[in-house]
Every structure is written in C-alpha cells, then in structure tokens.
C-alpha cells in the first residue's frame, strides 16, 4: 500500500503546489527572455517620469557654447598661423551696408549698396550675405557701391573645393546657378562638395563659403565644369557685409 499512498500524496501535493510551479515557470521564462516583460512594464509605468525636452535643450545650448568657444579659438589660431606663413588675414574688418536697389536678373545682375567710398568701400571689395559670398564691388561713388553678383556673366572668382583641394574659376552665366570651371582634367569632385573661396586668393578673403556643387560635367568644353547652388540668396537680401581691407 505504500506505493498507493505515495501516489495519493503526490497527486494532492501537485494539486496544492501548481500555482507555485506556474510562478516558477513564468519566472524561468522571464529569465530566459532577459527580462523582456519586466523592462517593458517598467518603461510603461515610468513613462510619465522620463526626462523631458528641457534636458535636450540644455545639452544643445551647452553644445552651442562649446562650438562658439572652439570656433573663436580656431579662428585666433588660424590668424596666428596665417600671420606666420605671411598669408592674407581671414578676418578683416567688415562694414554693414543696406541694399538700396537690386537687379538680380537681366543683362546686368547687380546690387546697389547704400555705403560708398566715404565709408571705406573700395572697388573689388568682397560682399557677404547671410550664407556666404554673393559678389564683388565693381564700382563705387562717394555714398554708393555697385556689386556685381556671382551670377553675372562678367563675374570671375577663384574658388576651391576644400575636400579635394582643387582650384577652379567660378563663372557667372546669367542664370541663378553659376558654374565652376576647373583647370585640371579630372578634378575629382562630386555633387554635394562644399565650395569656398581660395585660401591663396588675393582678390577675396580666404575660406568664405560660396555654395554647394549640384552636378558635375567632366566632359564639358573647354574645361570640366560643375554647376553650383549658391549658399547666399542675393534676390532676397536687404543687408550685406562688405569686407574692407
């Protein structure tokens, strides 16, 4: 009879212990799934207490502060190094000038500025708008200055591709998008490359952003050329900065 008693005991034991066995099985599943349900439940419950956007704002402002400090440090170091090498200074004085008449399309693509020779503007001064270079001063009167835009067919400015260090000539065509004509047969540029003024230029201050390459035509005649999307929009700019040397 002991076997029958054991059987009775075990069946009654199982009947009493099944909730515990179920719990153990559930815990084993939890363990094997590396806490999937537990973490998800915790995330769901704690969602109202998650860090808000304020923290990302703090991070972003801290990042901006850091960037500004780094730019200032790099600019001063760049100026010191350029001084040592004897190159033109990257940060000369700038005059803010209002645009008093504009002709962004047509036979002459020009702007007329409300500052002239009396304020120190000279022929050939570089003119900047938010975004980068938009043109060079082509003539000055005592109180006005005429800017020939980069899109004007008479505009020729030396630029370079900072990534590959190839020089080219930025040439206006009378349309919104000027082209760069390279002096090498294979300039190795691709769409998306950023164009800045040449660091070796004597006409314009070095390393001013000009635009982004949109498309490249290596088989163009007489030189490989790339279409440029200008970074600054002259048609909608009311105030510009004239670089005074």
């Amino acid at each position, binding site marked *: 009879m002991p076997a029958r008693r054991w059987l009775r005991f075990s069946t009654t034991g199982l009947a009493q212990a099944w909730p515990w066995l179920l719990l153990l099985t559930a815990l084993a599943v939890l363990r094997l799934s590396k806490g999937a349900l537990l973490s998800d439940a915790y995330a769901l419950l704690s969602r109202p207490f998650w860090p808000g956007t304020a923290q990302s704002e703090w991070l972003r402002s801290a990042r901006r502060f850091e960037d500004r400090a780094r730019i200032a440090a790099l600019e001063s170091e760049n100026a010191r190094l350029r001084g040592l090498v004897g190159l033109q200074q990257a940060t000369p004085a700038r005059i803010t000038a209002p645009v008093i008449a504009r002709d*962004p399309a047509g*036979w002459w693509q*020009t702007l*007329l500025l409300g500052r002239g020779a009396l304020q120190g503007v000279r022929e050939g001064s570089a003119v900047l708008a938010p975004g980068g270079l938009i043109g060079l001063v*082509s003539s000055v009167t005592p109180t006005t200055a005429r800017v*020939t835009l980069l899109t004007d*067919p*008479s505009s020729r400015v030396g630029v370079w591709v900072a990534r590959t260090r190839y020089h080219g*000539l930025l*040439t206006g065509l009378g349309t919104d998008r000027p082209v760069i004509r390279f002096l090498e047969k294979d300039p190795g540029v691709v769409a998306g490359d950023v164009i800045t003024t040449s660091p070796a230029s004597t006409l314009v201050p070095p390393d001013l952003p000009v635009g982004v390459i949109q498309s490249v035509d290596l088989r163009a005649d007489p030189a490989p050329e790339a279409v440029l999307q200008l970074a600054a929009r002259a048609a909608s700019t009311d105030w510009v900065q004239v670089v005074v040397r």
Partner: protein
Amino acid sequence: MASVLLVPCLTLAAPGFLRLAGVGPAWAVLWLLPWALVDGPVSGMVAGAAAGLLLDALHPAGVSQWPALLLLGFWWGRMGRRGPPIERSFSLGLLAMLGSLLLDLSLMLQWLLASLQVRADGLISPGGIDAFRLAQPGWQAADLAQAGLHVLLARVLLTGLLAPVLCSLQLVFWRQLCGGSLRR
C-alpha cells in the same frame, strides 16, 4: 525733358511685381515712345541718346544702349510726324515690343562681337585648357543663347504689356502740355 530722369530712377527702383522672372521692363523704351511720337524725330533722337547715356552710366562699361535708343527715337519721331497719329493701345504695345526687341538685340550683338574677338585671340594656345579664355568675363555666345534669350523674351513681353497703359497716359499728357500746337 527733365522727365528723362524718371528712366534711371525707375530702372533702379522698379518694384518686384513689375518684374517677370526677375527681369524688369525696358523703361527707356516706355518713356521714349510717346515722347518721340509727340515731339518729332530730332527731339526723339536727342531724348533717346540722353536716356541711353543715363542708363549706360548705371551699368558697367563694355556695351552701350544709346545707339539703339537714338535710332528708335528717330524712327518713332518720323512715324509720329508722317503717318496718321498712333493712339491705339495695340499699336503702342506692338511698337514698344519692337523697340525693346531691337534694344536688346543691339546689346546682344555687342556682347557677341566682343566674345568673338576674344575667341579669335584665345585660339593662339592649342592643346590643354586655355586658362586665358576661361577667365574672359562677359556674356559669351552660349550664355546669350540660353539665359540671354530668356532675358530678352521677358523684357519684350513685359514692355509690350505695360506700354498700352503707360504710353497712352504719357501721350495724353505730352499732347496737353504741347497745347495742341502739334498737328493731330
């Protein structure tokens, strides 16, 4: 005659809504047409040359607008004296369109001649990329055929559209000012 000063003022300060794809109308043509029609060929020539010289002063050197405007002034002056008086809006619009077309064609011709001159000079160095030729500023033949054509069409269209309104008003004004001394 002092009203000729309006031409450079309007060229400089034309509002954005009077532009087509950024190109403004030929204000010199819009001012010269009624003036020459009322005042005769000699006065038209002088006025055309004056407006042309004023506009040339506003633009970088190289090409000039006064020869075309002088010829237009003479043509329209003769037309006003010889034929029946021109008053219909359609005729004014057509004449202004023709005038703007001739003015712009004269500019294109000057740039084309200048670029051909450079091209002939630039052929001296064969082989490789001719940096001298690349650096030549100004409208080249290919630019004139593309962007230049757009500018020309926009200017001709806009001038032709504005002429019926503006030139009619000016015609009435000049004729009243002349006190009917000119034959109608």
